[in-house]
Every structure is written in structure tokens, then in C-alpha cells.
């Protein structure tokens, strides 16, 4: 009789396994829907013909996309944000890469503290960061007389700050997964430290570096709260242009801008994913 009982137990386990899988798939679907629904609605809205969004739509058109091209603030905002994100990401990588190497390779007092410190900009709310930078800029300008407040340099420096946590975090993660003996192998074959880094370490952590650049770029490009406090007059990033537009109008132009932004970032992700499997790093 034991066999029958065993079979029942096995059956029950198998059934609970199946139930578990259904539950997991269900939860994944709900989460996915939760993330995608707003995107779907925004995209849909961007093609509505009427000015005041209402359901069901009266018809569809591409006029709001044309409106963007005719709107100087959006065009210049886009260009500024793009420029800003590229420069901030480059500088952030140049600072984050050595920092990550230092954190994961050397043993020194305060290593943990430094590691947390470099992740801090990710934790501090953007508004707080923005106010703090604003006050800092004011104080430095008063003390030195240099034109810092509202300058492009100040804006770039602020964006570098929010790029750094991404570069440090992702590069550190990929360094942790690196087999140190391949570096020792390179050295035993005759490569000095610099050549070893260039020929072996860097190619091995490339996926992490690319992912770091991508996430840094996205977080800089979309940043609103911090930028609000440190942009100068006439220097409007795309997110700020959007929020300013929203203060006066609620027509689907904003939805159209968002669609373009989503497309840009999605394209960037798809392209990078072709070269390195981001999913392996993040």
C-alpha cells in the first residue's frame, strides 16, 4: 500500500509545482501589465485628433508630432538633454570606472564607506539634491565670484553626480564576476599592468561598462527634479520643457514627446543589447 501512498504524494507535489508555476506566471503578467499600461495609454493618446483628451477618441492624426517639430522649446530642450546626457555619461564613466576598480581591488580603511558614499546620489531624493546643489552654487559663487549659478558647467557637474552611482555599481558588479586569474595569466605572458587592463580586464567587463553607460545616460536624460534647481535662464532641458508646457496646456503634444522619448531609449537599449547582453549584467 506504500506505493499507492507514495504515488499520491508525488502527484500532490507535481500538482503543487504546476500551481506554483501558474501563480508565478500570473504575478509576472500582472507586473508587466502594471508597467506597460501607462506606456500604452500615452502612446495611444499621442495619436488622438482632438486637443482635449477624452475617450473614445474622435479620430486619429499625426498633428501632435508635427507640433513638436514646430516647437522651439522641445527641439532645443531635446538637443540640450542629449548633449548633457552624453557629456555627463562620459565624465561619469571616466570617474566611475577607476573608482569601481579601486573599491573592488584594494583593501583600505573606509572602503565600505566610500562605496556607500558613491551610491548616495541614487538614494537622496532629486529635489533635495537639487536644493543642495543650488545652495552650494550660490555659496561658491559668492565666495569666489565665478559665474557658477545657472551655468552649463554646473548643470553638467550635477548630472555627473547622478550618473556616478550607476557606473560605480554596474562596473563593480562585473568586476566581482571576473576571474582574477585571467589577469595573472596575462601578466605571466608578458603584459604589464596597463596592457593587462586594456587587453584583458576591459574587454571582460565590457558588458558592465556598456550597461553602466546606458543607465547613466537614461537617468541623466530623464532627470527633472534636480535639473529644475540648477538650470540657468534660457537653458531648458527636455523634461523641464515638458513640465513647463504642461502648466498651460494638456493637449496630446506631451504624449507625442513622451512617445519619442520612449522610442529613443528603447532603441538605445535594443542596440546595446545586440552587442552585449545587458540582462547578464543587470
Amino acid at each position: 500500500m506504500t506505493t499507492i501512498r507514495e504515488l499520491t504524494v508525488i502527484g500532490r507535489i507535481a500538482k503543487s509545482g504546476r500551481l506554483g508555476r501558474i501563480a508565478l506566471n500570473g504575478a509576472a503578467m500582472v507586473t508587466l501589465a502594471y508597467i506597460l499600461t501607462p506606456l500604452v495609454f500615452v502612446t495611444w493618446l499621442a495619436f488622438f485628433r482632438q486637443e482635449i483628451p477624452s475617450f473614445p477618441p474622435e479620430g486619429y492624426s499625426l498633428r501632435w508630432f508635427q507640433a513638436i517639430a514646430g516647437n522651439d522649446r522641445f527641439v532645443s530642450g531635446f538637443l540640450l538633454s542629449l548633449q548633457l546626457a552624453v557629456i555627463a555619461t562620459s565624465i561619469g564613466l571616466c570617474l566611475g570606472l577607476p573608482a569601481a576598480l579601486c573599491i573592488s581591488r584594494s583593501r583600505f580603511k573606509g572602503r565600505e564607506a566610500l562605496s556607500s558614499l558613491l551610491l548616495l546620489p541614487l538614494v537622496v531624493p532629486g529635489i533635495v539634491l537639487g536644493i543642495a546643489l543650488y545652495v552650494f552654487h550660490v555659496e561658491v559663487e559668492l565666495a569666489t565670484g565665478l559665474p557658477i549659478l545657472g551655468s552649463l558647467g554646473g548643470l553638467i557637474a550635477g548630472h555627473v553626480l547622478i550618473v556616478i552611482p550607476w557606473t560605480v555599481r554596474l562596473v563593480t558588479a562585473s568586476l566581482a564576476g571576473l576571474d582574477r586569474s585571467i589577469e595573472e595569466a596575462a601578466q605571466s605572458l608578458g603584459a604589464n599592468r596597463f596592457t593587462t587592463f586594456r587587453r584583458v580586464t576591459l574587454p571582460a567587463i565590457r558588458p558592465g561598462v556598456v550597461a553602466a553607460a546606458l543607465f547613466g545616460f537614461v537617468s541623466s536624460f530623464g532627470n527633472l527634479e534636480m535639473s529644475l534647481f540648477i538650470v540657468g535662464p534660457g537653458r531648458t532641458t527636455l523634461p523641464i520643457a515638458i513640465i513647463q508646457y504642461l502648466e498651460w496646456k494638456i493637449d496630446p503634444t506631451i504624449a507625442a514627446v513622451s512617445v519619442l522619448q520612449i522610442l529613443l531609449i528603447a532603441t538605445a537599449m535594443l542596440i546595446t543589447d545586440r552587442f552585449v547582453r545587458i540582462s547578464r549584467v543587470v
Partner: protein
Amino acid sequence: MARLEIDRVTKRYGDVYAVRDVTLDVADGEFVVLLGPSGCGKTTTLRVVAGFAEPTSGTVRLGERDITSLPPWKRNAGLVFQSYALFPHLTVAQNVAFGLEMRKVEPAEMSRRIADALRLVRLEHLGERLPRQLSGGQQQRVALARALVFRPDVLLLDEPLSNLDAKLRQEVRVEIRELQRKLELTTVMVTHDQEEALTMADRLVVMNDGAVRQVGTQQDLYERPTDRFVAGFVGRSTFIEGEIEAPGRFRSAGGLALACDGALPGPATLALRPERIAVAATPQTGMDNSLPGVVEFVSYLGATIDMHVRISGKERVIVQIPNRADSLVPSVGGQVHVAWAAANGIVFSGTDT
């Protein structure tokens, strides 16, 4: 290839000695194996030779050069790691080419030498593959080709076979050894596997607690171990505690009077190799020692049979007999007589080493 001289090398981390006063000469073309349990200092010794650990004191010479404080990339030592450490983003041929590129070898010469090296390890058809497309054994051979192609002065192998499965390991042992002989490579290998060490080495160095315990050939270590650790680590031994009462007479803690070879009176340990003990149903005349005993444990191992025989209240010996048609195969609880010649017992003076 060149001669390697390790002279009184000590490596200390704070108060902990990883390697303590190690001296070793490896002749040109000789294959020396450092053998010991994990943490015995064998890997640190190898890393000192490779240049990844700087000795606290002592010198390392390779050929005519003092390489003690030379960085790894100037030592001209070929290294094979346990994890193979192939560059994952480079093809097999590019991996092998790395050492030649660093030495700025001309392109024509380079491709010829890469082809030679790959042929040497029988991988000439896989040059364009990436390491992850190869089996463990193949990756291992790429690592070997990469370490040999630039004609290093010494070949250093850090547990090179540990990641291979048992059957493959036996093949690769022979392969590496034959290659080493053919190319007359000065080689130092680190391993904790005594069978591997015994198969491959010209000479073995047994290490424990950071120090060299004995250096010698397979026969030296097995027949004439200088201390108890070596007798227990290389091959198996039964240790019987007791004392030498008079030259040639050993009194065990369990009260047995045994004939042994020489040694000064005082506390001592008698070590017996399992296969040097004979077993019979009746007392064996003509042997220096013949004792009655009770079989307490038997393991049938195919080619051999192991048994544990109790010879006194405190002592039990391990006996290994060949499994032949006429072998006496006792069962647990059976009465037997064990016997051995005095010359087959190894005496270590002192209580414990």
C-alpha cells in the same frame, strides 16, 4: 629552459608564515612536484616563483637571473592555472598568440609558432573557436599551448588537472609528462593529489605548514620517509605508538613486543605499510614478527582487498592483500595471523612529529 633555484624563501603575512625557509633546486629539464595538503604553502611557493607574491626574505634565481623582485611580466615563466584562465573574448589562436604579441614576434613567425603550439596539443583544427565552445580538457590544452608557445624558462602548473574528470585526468597526466620530456621543460607543479604527483614527477617535495618536510624520488618518499607526516601523506601507513626498549626491540603501547630495525631507545612510532604485511591462517615461521589477530573490517576493492586486523587491545593494523584466486579472504570476526619483516617497519623516534 633553465635551472630554477629557490633559496631560503620565506613569505609571511603579519604573524602567519605561509612559506617558511624553503630551499629547492630544480635542474634544467626536471619535473618537480610540490605536494601537500591545502594551506601547506605549496601554492604560495609557486606564486613567489611566478612573481605574484613577493617573498619576505630569500631569493629566487632563474638561469643566470635573480628574479626575486622582478614583476611577473618580466620573468618569462609559463603558467597554467587550475581554472585555465583563458581569455574569454579571444579565440583559441588569439589566446595562444598573446604571449608572442607581448614579445613583438613578427607576424609570419608568430603564425608559424601558433600553429606549432596548437599541433603540439592536438588542437590545430580548433584555432578559431572561443574558449567557451571547448570542453574542459581542450581548454586545459589551450592553456598549456599558451604557456609554452613563447618558450618560457620555466613551466609552472598550479593544480592543472583538478577541474578535469577522473578518467581524463589520467590521460592528461601522461600527455603533459611526455610533452615535458620531449621539450625538456623545467617544470614545477603544485598538487594535493599524491597519485598525480607520483605519476608525473622526477622529484617530489612534500610540504606541510609552510615548510618542506622531505624532498626525494617516489621511492625515497615511500620507502624512506623521514618523518611521520610524510609516511602518512604519501601512501598509507598504520602507526603504532610505543617505545624502543633495546636496539631492535619495540614495545607497543598495547604491550606487544615487536622486532624492528635499530634506533635509539626511547619513545617511538612504528609505521607499517599495508601491503608489506602478510596474512595467513596459521602462525608464520621465518618472519621477524608473526602475531595472531581478529579481522574487524574488510573492504573488497577489486584488485586488492583491505582489512583491519586487531592485534592487541590498543592496536589495529591495516593490511592490503592482492586479490588472487588463492588469496585468503577472511570474513569479519575471523582469526588470522599477520606477519612482517623487521626491515618493513619504519621507526620514527620521539612521540609525535
